[in-house]
């Protein structure tokens, strides 16, 4: 079995990023869109970890960046869920295409 290199992590993170991007464009359900946006963030975080491990030396700045991105991702999700709560109260639907007058 081939040894794991930086490129393996890059391919996985790229594929996860693409899945998240495609899902956030394709899905109509707002919860699925939010989940797919978190997939995008997860792909970026895997990139950070891989670069920190293989190219960062002893500094490991990528690991610190993952912490920041995790915090920002959680905040973004909380705000998005709250906006969704308001919009659902108003529109009674979870279809993002009905949220044109946000």
């Amino acid at each position, binding site marked *: 079995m081939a040894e*794991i290199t930086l490129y393996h992590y890059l391919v996985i993170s790229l594929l*996860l990023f693409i899945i998240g991007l495609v899902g956030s464009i394709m899905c109509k359900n707002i919860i*699925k869109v939010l989940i797919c946006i978190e997939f995008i963030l997860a792909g970026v975080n895997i990139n950070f970890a891989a670069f920190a491990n293989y190219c960062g030396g002893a500094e490991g700045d990528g*690991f610190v960046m993952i912490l920041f991105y995790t915090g920002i991702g959680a905040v973004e999700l909380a705000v998005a869920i709250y906006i969704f709560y308001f919009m659902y109260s108003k529109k009674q639907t979870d279809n993002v295409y009905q949220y044109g007058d946000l």
Partner: protein
Amino acid sequence: MYKEIIFYSASFLILLFGILTIFFRNIFYSLISAICVFFLAGILFWLSGSEYNAVIQFAVYGFAVPVILGLGIMFTRKGKEEEEEKTASASNLKNILLFICGLFILAVVYLVLISLTIFPYGFNLEANLQNGINTYNNFRIFSKGLFIKYVFAFEIISIILTITAAGLTVLKKRRNV
């Protein structure tokens, strides 16, 4: 060898569950698949030498974020449950997903135990030592990064978190009035 097996199986499953998240019609199944993806991303962090990020990933994305999303889903389920009960024919799929989730939890527990007993310095000790990183060094990296190198970004994110918490509370109160 074990690292390659874990990496390839985790990579395959992360893509599989990512695709399933998009294509499941039932949003609960999508959420369960997404939880699996987040856990598997944590395993990839672990393999890449960042055990603390893996633990944070498990805690935040494995437990906290699904709770928030689950609350959001439950908020939208009024009236839909009766319709779906009539049309639901995927109970086997639900059982399979639950079984897979159970396997994941067991795998994570096994990884933690094996790392504590057989590999006390982390899975990729050799690679970490070559790169100058080891498990004990992670503390130094985080403390230096958070409180010295990126202290400004850290303070900004703390302020954003505080503003978000306060803002959501104020909005909720204003809406109730």
